[in-house]
């Protein structure tokens, strides 16, 4: 596991999101109540991008079928999603967001 440098934390406003891509992974970054959360971008229910969903109450709503995921645990809060999405630890260093993830995925 490595801490990968992504984007500047100021680039994500409160209750909004950003997409961070590596060669074979896509991570969705969210700002909720000042905290940054990182989860897999792909919804666990269908092919949709969670970074395009709306955020409120530290939950993100998948734009395709409205399933809600808890940003802190990655758990599916409503159907039609039934599986949780993977979460990643984040930390802010020097104004940049670092995400802890496997780069050999």
């Amino acid at each position, binding site marked *: 596991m490595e801490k990968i440098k992504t984007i500047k934390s100021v680039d994500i406003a409160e209750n909004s999101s950003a997409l961070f891509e590596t060669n074979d992974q896509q991570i969705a970054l969210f700002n909720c109540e000042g905290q940054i959360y990182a989860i897999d971008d792909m919804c666990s229910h269908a092919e949709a991008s969670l970074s395009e969903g709306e955020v409120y109450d530290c939950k993100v709503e998948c734009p*395709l079928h*409205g399933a809600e995921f808890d940003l802190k645990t990655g758990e599916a*809060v*409503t*159907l*039609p999603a*039934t599986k949780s999405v993977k979460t990643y630890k984040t930390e802010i260093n020097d104004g940049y967001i670092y995400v802890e993830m496997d780069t050999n995925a």
Partner: protein
Amino acid sequence: MANVDIDLGKYSLGWSDPEKNVFKPEKGLNEEIIRKMSEIKDEPEWMLDFRLKAYKRFLDKPMPEWVAKEKLDSLDFDDIYYYIKPTEDQADSWDMVPDEIKETYEKLGIPEAERSYLAGVTAQYESEVVYHRNREDLEKLGVIFCDMDTAVREYPELVQEYFGTVIPPGDNKFAALNSAVWSGGSFIYVPKGVHIEDPLQAYFRINAENMGQFERTLIIVDEGASVHYIEGCSAPVYTTDALHSAVVEIIVKPSGTCRYTTIQNWSNDVFNLVTKRAQAFANATMEWIDANIGSSLTVKYPSVYLMEPGAHGEVLSVAFANAGQHQDTGAKMVHLAPDTTSLITSKSISKGGGRGAYRGLVRVEDGSETAKSFVRCDALILDDESRSDTYPYMEIEESTAVIGHEATVSKVGEDQLFYLMSRGLTESEATSMIVAGFVEEFTKTLPMEYAMEFNKLIELNMIEAGAVG
């Protein structure tokens, strides 16, 4: 359920009362109307937020392109009333119900049912629940059975915990619409271990021209409890399209049982676009029993998400597609745990140029070891103008699951007809009998009076569009 006297004239259930409504906004939908609606209902903040968020989803989402495109293209959302409040306040006993409304229900036979001992009845008129009375013994058991509006006000924590968790507003365009403008519908909570013997029931109607019906039902069956809920509806005849877009969410907790029976008989100009979904937990059973007889277009796929081991889901669906009708119905079963089982039985009858379709999905996720699912769809086409389609999707990712699917399509056998006619029945009587036999599996799940009414409806259906003879 009372005995309904159906005189066999055309559209016997199709009449409409001169409108007597308290507050009648214009056609079309906007944020203003939603706010007003929420205010009149005296809803908590979270429900208004929910509605407004849902309204945004509704505007963003496109119309589905994969079903009944022509019919759906003709739907004009601006040409519909979204909320009407028929009386000042909810009545507590029959005496308080306004006369016109009482008459409507008398025609439907409810007073008779009131006389005989019955389960509590929630009746809906113009998207607002007018009359409601809980049976005393239900109350004693701790069962909550009221209309959804009341539930939001009186049981906020319970409602908020589950509302929108089975069908979120963003699920599809019509669920979003319902989530924004829902009104009426039933709320049922059955506490642990409680078994309700008699079925709970409700009626629905669309009355004002272009009135949409958006009832929202939420049923929570707690551990080890059981309930049977029946809804049957009718609507008057109008030339412009009416829209019925309901949402039904059901949660059946471990070892609970829930059966939800619908006999839908909207008149032939209604668009019936419904989202019905249930979650069944460990060893719970969920059964959807669904008859679609009326409407111009019905799009409805009752589903069960089998969340934990031992969960069982069943859909028994019957659809009649007559002239000008398109019934696109079926079921969805999603297996998410080992040892889950599902059974889908679909019977579809097309005649007079009608179009019946079975569209279903069985999805078995990886890890659902020894899950079993069986689908059986049979279709009867009664003449050469009609059409029957079958689209059975299967997405199986578990190698130990056992999945089967059988389908047949045929017409009424000539030998069968001949046999019955040689015993004195007319051709339409004989056809009627054969059709009744074809759907017997469904009819025998109904309480007797419903079964009788249903069989009468079949006869009516056979005779009406000049079935045969």
